């Protein structure tokens, strides 16, 4: 029988679900059942389906066990003995249909995706360069350096139509050519792994799961544009990604893939990892350059663009992690292969971090042009509980919220922008009927206000004014004129600000006003929060018919606002109640006696 491989993913999220303990327990059991020579263990990066973590996958068949606990290790290992059957209770169960699915590739979350950027994530060991090479790794680099001139590489990338996946969607090939053509003594390359957009983790997962693909992309880009020094700017909040990158870099150096005379050619390239110190605006390329120079991350006006004058005044190519991870595929398979995916103006695939109120949270890679509906309902499995979909947020604080009637919108750079949102770097947060859109807009503005650099008056003060108006509205003190004022202010901020952050700060407000104006109006005119989120506009009440005086809520109430005696329905003292919702959550599954109005 072919040797079987047992995969236990070890991404940040898998680890927090207990994947390390499961891995150790499985190894122990392998020894116990005398299987240590029959099976091989592997710890790949995240497979992307966080919902089922920790998951154990047995290759080559692709059997998948979901939600494995340490105590399941024994039955899993025993099932590998001759003639035994796998423990079926550990198979993945589809939440809606309760069907069990034994094989990874049959699970809709995986089968409906098309993965190549994420191809290695969850399958290879990110700590092993051999594993990466076995799957064709560094072949593209070899091909580029030995069979292609820099200009041929650039032409191939141009021809592929690859657009930058960091948010802007600038054509990668064009940027490379501009950098190539810019005169300079030393050119630099920066991999933008700052990923500050709250609600996205695709770059982290990629760095954790397939760091060599990013390094290979950087090397090819460096060769093409004539750069000799590369930086990976990665946020310090990602310790595991940094560690995996350090290991990968060390291995690449040992194999003479980084350093002088790479693969024995004339091409030399050095690389360094720089840890970002926690500032969202540093994802913006000019702010990032300032930060690399040891300064406050203040964006500055372009032109000159970094490709002309960037780090230390030299031509600098800045690309996102995913953009760079796509390169090896284009070089290996050709531009035509890449162009065949996606839409006319947006080629290839896009990676999203799907999260929020959706059944299957995780990493999703799909061809450009697919509908939001397919991502959220086809792959994501829809909304949990009996709740209704309300909105999907893409593009982070610079993006927008799209409503249910736009679910058939195609996901590509231009269509999303026309709908008022943006592709962004890949965050996709789903919201259900319990999400208040005014509160959501307020949330994003509060985030941006904290993160903006403060240079431009319109951005700094305009954002604050907008936030104060939104605060007023969520307190029930909004005025009918506030909505027009918000739009006006939004336009001023967007037009009067220097960088990409300021120019897009108003987006979440403007799109929610465009698509969910009735919610704003309910807050202002009726002093009502339809989603029952805004604390000043809601009251908790106990239904006397349903209350069984079980004392659960009474004990749990943090402010002792619930009063009552045995066998007598309780009452909430409104002036003590802080509207935390603890009582409602506790009672919901039991008697449903508490309501929020």
């Amino acid at each position: 029988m072919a040797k079987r491989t047992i995969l236990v993913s070890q991404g940040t999220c898998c680890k927090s679900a207990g994947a390390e303990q499961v891995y150790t327990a499985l190894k122990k059991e392998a020894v116990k059942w005398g299987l240590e020579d029959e099976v091989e263990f592997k710890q790949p990066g995240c497979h992307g389906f966080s919902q089922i973590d920790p998951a154990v996958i047995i290759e080559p068949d692709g059997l998948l066990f979901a939600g494995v606990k340490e105590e399941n290790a024994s039955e899993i290992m025993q099932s590998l003995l001759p003639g035994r059957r796998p423990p079926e209770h550990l198979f993945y169960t589809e939440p809606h249909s309760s069907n069990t699915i034994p094989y990874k590739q049959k699970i809709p979350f995986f089968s409906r995706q098309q993965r190549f950027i994420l191809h290695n994530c969850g399958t290879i060991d990110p700590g092993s360069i051999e594993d990466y090479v076995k799957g064709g790794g560094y072949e593209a680099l070899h091909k580029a350096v030995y069979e292609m001139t820099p200009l041929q590489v650039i032409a191939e990338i141009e021809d592929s139509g690859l657009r930058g996946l960091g948010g802007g969607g600038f054509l990668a090939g064009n940027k490379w050519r501009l950098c190539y053509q810019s005169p300079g003594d030393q050119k630099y390359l920066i991999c933008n792994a700052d990923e500050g957009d709250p609600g996205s983790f695709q770059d982290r997962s990629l760095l954790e799961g397939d760091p060599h693909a990013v390094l290979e992309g950087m090397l090819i880009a460096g060769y093409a544009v004539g750069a000799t020094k590369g930086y990976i700017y990665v946020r310090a909040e990602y310790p595991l990604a940094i560690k995996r990158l350090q290991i990968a870099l060390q291995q690449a150096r040992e194999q003479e893939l980084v350093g002088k005379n790479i693969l024995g050619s004339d091409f030399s390239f050095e690389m360094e990892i720089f840890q970002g110190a926690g500032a969202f605006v540093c994802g913006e390329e000019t702010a990032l350059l300032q930060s690399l120079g040891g300064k406050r991350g203040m964006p500055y006006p372009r032109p000159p663009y970094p490709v002309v004058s960037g780090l230390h005044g030299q031509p600098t190519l800045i690309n996102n992690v995913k953009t760079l991870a796509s390169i090896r595929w284009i070089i290996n398979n050709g531009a035509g292969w890449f162009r065949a995916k996606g839409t006319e103006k947006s080629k290839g695939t896009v990676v999203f971090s799907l999260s929020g109120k959706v059944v299957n949270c995780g990493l999703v890679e799909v061809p450009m042009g697919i509908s939001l509906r397919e991502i959220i309902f086809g792959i994501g499995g829809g909304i949990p509980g009996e709740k209704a979909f309300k909105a999907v947020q893409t593009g982070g604080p610079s993006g927008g919220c799209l409503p249910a009637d736009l679910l058939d919108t195609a996901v590509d750079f231009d269509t999303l922008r026309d709908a008022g949102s943006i592709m962004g770097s890949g965050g996709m947060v789903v919201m259900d009927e319990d999400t208040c859109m005014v509160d959501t807009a307020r949330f994003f503005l509060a985030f941006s206000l904290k993160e903006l650099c403060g240079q431009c008056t319109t951005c700094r003060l305009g954002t604050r004014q907008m936030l104060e108006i939104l605060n007023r509205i969520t307190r029930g003190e909004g005025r009918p004129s506030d909505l027009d004022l918000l739009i006006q202010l939004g336009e001023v901020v967007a037009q009067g600000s220097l960088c990409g952050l300021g120019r897009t700060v108003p987006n979440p407000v403007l799109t929610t006003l465009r698509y969910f104006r009735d919610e704003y109006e309910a807050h202002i005119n009726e002093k009502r929060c339809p989603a029952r989120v805004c604390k000043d506009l809601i009251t908790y009440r106990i239904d006397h018919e349903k209350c069984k005086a079980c004392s659960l809520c009474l004990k749990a109430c943090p402010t002792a606002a619930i009063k009552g005696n045995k066998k007598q329905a309780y009452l909430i003292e409104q002036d003590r109640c802080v509207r935390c919702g603890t009582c409602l959550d506790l009672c919901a599954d039991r008697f449903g006696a508490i309501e929020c109005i």
Partner: protein
Amino acid sequence: MVDYELKNRIIMKEIFSSFRGTENELIPILQHVQEHFGYLPESAMLEVARFISVSESKVYATASFYSQFRFKATGKKHITVCQGTACHVRGAGKIQDTLERQLGIKEGETTADQEYSLEAVACIGCCALAPCIAVNNETIYGRLTPQKVKVVHEPIRGERKNGQKNHSGQPGNML
């Protein structure tokens, strides 16, 4: 006291030894300093300023721009509660409220006994497990509910909701 200062000077020297002393090394230097002390002591920033030949105010201006840098010691257990989008949508506000109530401190504060400090951050990159918190920037706890946070000193078990099987095992002690 003298010993203490001497010790610190040795630590600083050790940190500086892996740098050349140029301005663009400021952020990595500060990161190293913070790793040693848990925050940026004023005296250390002074020495950094001297080492890279810039004014103290410039060091402070840069350090205060970035949210990673702290100017006060944190508690032994530094809890960061995520208030990113995914966590916000899934009830991170309630998690923070519960933590604040249980610890008796507000976000940004440290308990009097220096055991715990609480900080709200935007996204720790585990959005699929929202809402989540991190302890000492290492251990991440996801899929929290206010009820789970309540059992601070007890093991957290995989939640069961609506009788549905939930695939999250949550081993270990939380705090």
